[in-house]
């Protein structure tokens, strides 16, 4: 293999990796606030893409994307208020089952609203055939957009969780809900907020990856599976780790195609997931000690 080809595979891997990471970040936010995995996360990504495509018909692209993020954020809040908020001390398992139900519901509603056809946003820079050429390696500008947006999201989230009162309150709820309540933090509000935040992040991700992956009423689920894998790989709850893990998985998948038939790509990710769950259940970047203290 020559070096051009090598770097082309790296670029492909980065493309996969960032798409996965953007989805994984959303999983982490809700996990941080509630300790549950929101299986409707993929649907937030789908909604972000779909709404952005619909709005982009009458609005300029940046406004359409902001609109999509706003609408999806509201949907996130509505989902929490309707299905989660009124539960009294729900078990983790119950909440997870509810999110699975919600994901099916959202998919069916999307099918009725948008039909089954495939849609796509235009490329933010250039067109679907534009690529930036570095030597003999090509990279689509949209990949840079995805990388940039995930980087900003990770930094902004980390600042939010560490330096703002609201972010600290959310972390307090995740660490010990009863203690947080004794300090006067409304746990229920924090959960609603986390649903809004992760819906918003999912929607941003959905809009940025949409030109690459396209969007369809059921395109959220496969993305959610990959995002979930990456979230576990990196260590649940850690967004920067999710980006790292996304890159590792993406590049592994990409190079697996060089050696193995392409059909084995999914085998790689699932084997890796199983391996991590057996050897380091806290994730590649996670701390085993912290994991032991978690409920789930």
């Amino acid at each position, binding site marked *: 293999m020559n070096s051009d080809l090598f770097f082309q595979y790296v670029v492909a891997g980065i*493309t996969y990796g960032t798409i996965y990471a953007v989805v994984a970040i959303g999983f982490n936010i809700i996990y941080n606030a509630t300790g549950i995995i929101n299986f409707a996360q993929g649907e937030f990504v789908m909604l972000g893409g779909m709404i952005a495509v619909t709005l982009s018909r009458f609005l300029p692209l940046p406004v359409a994307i902001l609109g999509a993020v706003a609408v999806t954020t509201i949907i996130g809040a509505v989902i929490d208020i309707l299905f989660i908020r009124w539960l009294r001390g729900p078990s983790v398992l119950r909440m997870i089952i509810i999110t699975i139900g919600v994901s099916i519901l959202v998919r069916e509603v999307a099918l009725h609203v948008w039909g089954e*056809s495939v849609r*796509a946003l235009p490329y933010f820079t250039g067109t679907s055939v534009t690529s930036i050429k570095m030597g003999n390696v090509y990279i689509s500008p949209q990949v840079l957009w995805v990388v940039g947006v995930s980087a900003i999201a990770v930094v902004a989230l980390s600042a939010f969780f560490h330096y703002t009162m609201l972010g600290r309150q959310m972390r307090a709820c995740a660490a010990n809900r009863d203690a947080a309540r004794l300090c006067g933090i409304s746990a229920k509000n924090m959960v609603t907020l986390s649903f809004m935040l992760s819906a918003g992040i999912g929607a941003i991700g959905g809009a940025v990856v949409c030109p690459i*992956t396209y969007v*369809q009423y059921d395109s959220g689920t496969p993305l959610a599976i990959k995002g979930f894998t990456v979230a576990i790989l990196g260590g649940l709850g850690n967004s920067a780790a999710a980006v790292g893990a996304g890159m590792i998985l993406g590049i592994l998948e990409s190079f697996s195609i060089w050696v193995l038939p392409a059909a084995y790509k999914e085998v790689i990710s699932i084997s890796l997931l199983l391996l991590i769950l057996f050897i380091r259940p806290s994730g590649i970047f996670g701390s085993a000690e912290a994991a032991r203290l978690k409920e789930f």
Partner: protein
Amino acid sequence: MRGKSGLICAILALALMAGASVQAAEPIKVGAILSVTGPASFLGAPEAKTLEMLVEEQNKKGGFLGRKIELIVKDSGASAEKAFSFAKQLIEEEKVFAILGPSTSGESMKIKSVAEEGKTLLLSCAAAEVIVNPVAMYVFKTPQSDKDAVIKIFQQMKKMKISRIGVLSSNTGFGNAGKAQIEKLAPAYGILILANEVYDKAASDLTAEVTKIKAANVEAILNWSIEPAQAIAIKNARQIGLKVPIFQSHGFGNIKYVEAAGPAAEGVIFPAGRLLIVDVLPKSHPQKAVLNKYKKDYESRFKEEVSTFGGHAYDAFMILAKAIENTNSTDKELIRSAIEQLQGFVGTGGIFYFSPSDHNGLNIDAFEMLTVRKGKFVPLAK
């Protein structure tokens, strides 16, 4: 107590009488198993809409021989297991006259024997050659065969002096059947397959796959799938600077994919029925009138562009209607042999010539080579 049972008797008697009086105008039940939702929804949804439109139209004209048609659509979501139990239900409980669909090849193969055992007509809307080869008494299909599509593509490649190709296909019934035909037929046309990659049907990016094909130094790419991934593949190929011609299967015949792929779709070559180019078809072409009517009816009613897939359901229904009209009967056996005798029936997929040994009735002439220019399907210049 006695009074009560007397009352029940009276109600039963009434119900029986009502049943008897309904019998005279009993509707004729036609079942349809289609993937209206799920991964093959772009096949099943236009098919279901087409059937709904045709049945309404036919019922306005008095249905079949004065009996109203009752269309029972079952959404299989492209699951062969669901298709199987729906087929059983339609045949054994609903006792339908015929089943239209399923939309995909995998489902059609699964219920081929069910239709055969239940002696119920099955007019499949799926493409794979294996559905009608070997021939099953009661099973027909309306789309053109994948085998003919592959031959048509290879003929075009020979014309363009292409002999070294890379093949991509998705891991579905359609992708696998196409891949098998490509591998089988390539040697006869002197075509060398230098890379042969299968990808997941839900793939979101295929840069690594096309990089592998680029490394194999091919003269053309042939992709075989019906999912959005087929539009992703061409985009990624162009992004990494691969400039060779790209060929697609007849599954590319949906303008949504061209819209999604944007400029990357320009110049893609693929075989398809003539529905997509009806506007530029010469007036003298025998299919012109049928295609025009279907396109106009469908687009004015559903406000979306017509695709070849809905056309397969159109053909299935019209073939059934024609056979009933020809025999002036609703006897399953008579209808079955009437379909086998249909000659020169003009449909959207081509001109059908059925026979007891050919339950598809189309040949390679049903295909036209198309390409994409300025975001539209146009015939490929000869």
